[in-house]
């Protein structure tokens, strides 16, 4: 008995479809591959890190989105997840880690402290990591719930999917990095 089951991938890019094959542009294929295998580097410095542990555990399970492979070396990481208060002493370390990541790389900024310094409006705390490195997605909250982290990751995936393969070599990108004093 023949059964016809229509399978429609939820996030299918535009392309040419036929019996048993699907063709799309290289940009979109690469974007799909990148978006669904983001390897995060958790830069967890305080309570947001605890919330991130819940996100990684079985209940929320970040692995469903292809991001279960934590990388504790920037060499194999695509996504820098900054979670927690970054003091001014920590700032150069964070910056070094970001600069040593391989291209292409994205930055997810989790929680009030990492985004703006949060309640720590003092001399010793960096008032937002975007003062030293470019940030792609901010997650609000103190600390944000795991659902918000998942939402943030999905936003990063959207960015990865829609990014042109030439973006990282473009002069605009270099200019953007230079504005942060990188390179």
């Amino acid at each position, binding site marked *: 008995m023949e059964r016809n089951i229509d399978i429609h991938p939820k996030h299918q890019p535009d392309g040419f479809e036929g019996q048993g094959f699907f063709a799309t542009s290289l940009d979109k294929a*690469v974007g799909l591959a990148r978006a669904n295998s983001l390897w995060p580097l958790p830069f967890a410095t305080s309570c947001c890190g605890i919330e991130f542990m819940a996100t990684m555990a079985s209940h929320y399970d970040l692995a469903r989105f292809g991001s279960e492979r934590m990388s504790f070396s920037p060499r194999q990481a695509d996504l820098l997840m900054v979670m927690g208060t970054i003091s001014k002493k920590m700032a150069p*370390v*964070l910056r*070094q*880690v970001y600069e*040593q990541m391989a*291209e292409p790389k994205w930055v997810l900024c989790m929680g009030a402290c990492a985004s703006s310094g949060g309640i720590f409006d003092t001399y010793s705390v960096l008032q937002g990591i975007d003062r030293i490195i470019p940030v792609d997605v901010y997650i609000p909250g103190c600390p944000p719930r795991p659902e918000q982290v998942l939402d943030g990751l999905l936003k990063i995936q959207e960015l990865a999917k829609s990014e042109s393969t030439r973006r990282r070599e473009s002069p605009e990108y270099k200019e953007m990095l230079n504005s942060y004093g990188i*390179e």
Partner: protein
Amino acid sequence: MEAQQSHLWDYLPVILMAIVALGFVVTTLLLTHWLGPKRKTKIKNDAFECGIESQGNARTPFSIKYFLVAILFVLFDVEVIFMYPWAVNFRELGVFGLIEMFTFMGLMIVGLVYIIRKGALKWE
């Protein structure tokens, strides 16, 4: 009974699979190198030491004593490992096992006395 002859073409599927496997690896490596963006700066190429600036060279000479102590530890550690099967089969092996193990341990003790007399474990 028919003589079994093997021909080279019998291995064709295996060879084909090897070629495909190797080809896939090489193609993927080349393709990712070609497609992936790169940015090489001095900081990027530095050694990763958890974000802290690296100081000095990792390849500095250090005292031979560390190596000597480590290798002697392994030697006598293995000696203890040999005692476990003896302990498990202690009753089965009986007096014969006892004599054999004491000979073995005697040899090792002679070695231990030798290295101590040589001063291999003297740290200062």
